[in-house]
């Protein structure tokens, strides 16, 4: 089936440009096509009309790379739970619908162009401690340390984070707590992560604050919008880790 929709797309030339909605009409969109394929159609239409196509991030188009990032009708990744923008299909819309598309909005995610934002703040948080300091080649046999299955499974659930930033986009405080806690939690659950647990919790939170993200007020909007449905439990674990780290660190 084909539908016609009106799009109100946020256009902004750079981080310092003011930006505004621009209206586009797009017709004969197959309901089988994905939202991004509809955007491809629109862009090709714009190019053929001599207009500037809309810049947006996307890559794998199967919901795993975390690159796509559109705020559609008041929701990161649009209507539907547990999906990324690239997994949203046009069958979620009706003929004649008006669809508002905005970029992720957060001070820590400056807009590059149109719907494309700079998420290197996430990389910076990871660089502050989102790793185990083990050099290549120095690892012992993988089965030397058994890990409780329940812990391994929980760690996996935290590690499923794709770093898309929907949590920040959804949070009224633009907080990166779900993102940060997912990594802290993953490594806190595994024996391999214990040695550096104190430094990790303190440093990653400090970097998160330095990048200008807000604080968590436990609204749960992040979990509701997370395409990988990462739980608030990890934020609680980060809070515990951080408290223990604050109290026990020597300086």
């Amino acid at each position, binding site marked *: 089936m084909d539908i016609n929709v009106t799009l109100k797309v*946020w256009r902004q030339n750079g981080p310092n440009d003011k930006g505004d*909605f621009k209206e586009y009409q797009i017709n004969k969109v197959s309901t089988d096509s994905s939202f991004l394929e509809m955007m491809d159609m629109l862009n090709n239409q714009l190019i053929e009309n001599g207009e500037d196509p809309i810049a947006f991030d996307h890559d794998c188009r199967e919901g795993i790379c975390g690159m796509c990032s559109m*705020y559609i*009708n*008041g*929701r*990161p990744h649009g209507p539907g739970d547990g999906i990324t923008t690239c997994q949203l299909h046009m069958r979620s819309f009706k003929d004649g619908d008006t669809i*508002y598309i*905005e970029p992720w*909005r*957060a*001070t*820590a995610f400056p807009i590059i162009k149109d719907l494309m934002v700079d998420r290197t703040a996430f990389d910076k948080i990871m660089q502050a401690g989102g790793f185990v300091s083990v050099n290549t080649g120095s690892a012992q046999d993988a089965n030397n340390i058994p890990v409780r299955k329940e812990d391994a499974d929980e760690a996996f659930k935290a590690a499923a984070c794709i770093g898309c930033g929907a949590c920040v986009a*959804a949070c*009224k*405080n*633009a*907080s990166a*707590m779900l993102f940060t806690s997912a990594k802290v939690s993953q490594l806190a659950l595994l024996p391999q992560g214990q040695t550096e647990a104190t*430094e990790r919790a*303190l440093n990653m*939170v*400090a970097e*998160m*604050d330095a990048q*200008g*993200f*807000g*604080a*968590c*007020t*436990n*609204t*749960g*909007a992040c*979990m*509701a*919008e997370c395409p990988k449905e990462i739980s*608030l*439990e990890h*934020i*609680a*674990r*980060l*809070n*515990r*880790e*951080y*408290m223990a*780290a*604050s109290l026990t*660190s*020597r*300086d």
Partner: protein
Amino acid sequence: MASLKESLTSSVGRKYVMGLTGLFLIVFLLVHLSGNFTLLLKDGTAFNTYAHFMKENLLIKLSEVILFGGFLLHIIQGLMLTAKNKAARAVNYQVAHKHDKVDWTSKAMSALGMILLIFLIIHLYDFFRFKYFVADPQMTADGTMIDLHGIVRHEFSEGGLEGIFHLAVYTLGMAAVSFHLWHGFQSTFQSLGLRHPKYTPFIQGLGKLYAVVVPAAFVAIPYIIKFTAEAH
């Protein structure tokens, strides 16, 4: 590495302070409520004695400082967090975020907090009016007892606009307390990292119960006074 000061002023540290003071204030509400119940007694002795005790006891004076500090910390940290959080999104969305699973009270905590602050100022004004402007809540200069119990009951049960105003302010204040607690109760536990799949549902349930029952009890007292006063 972070010093304790850095830890306490980080976004997570500030949330501990919010959580700890929040929990403290939650407990205080119960204490406050138990005192209020004595207002319901027709005989003012209990309430007046209680008020006198509150005024004179050293331990109470000490707890008052702690309580005041707790309020202050909770409010100041709240304001600072709100400022930080607003700065984290300098440009707002044109279409506001909406999701069924996100409760509006959780998003309105700072607004509800502001309402509570205004209520608190009015409430404290009333409180201090009697506590300090009158030399002794039970004794006036000429040696007659001031019946604080009677005064409070009168405030709520007097006819005309003034009585309605007092009731309305009080009711609105308690509604704000209720909504604030609706999210705040379980949120204190989350901020302190106290979350577990087995216990958290219970805490969340208890929090909602508390958020309804305690403010409702607070509000019920003046209404009971008003309607029982009118009855005779």
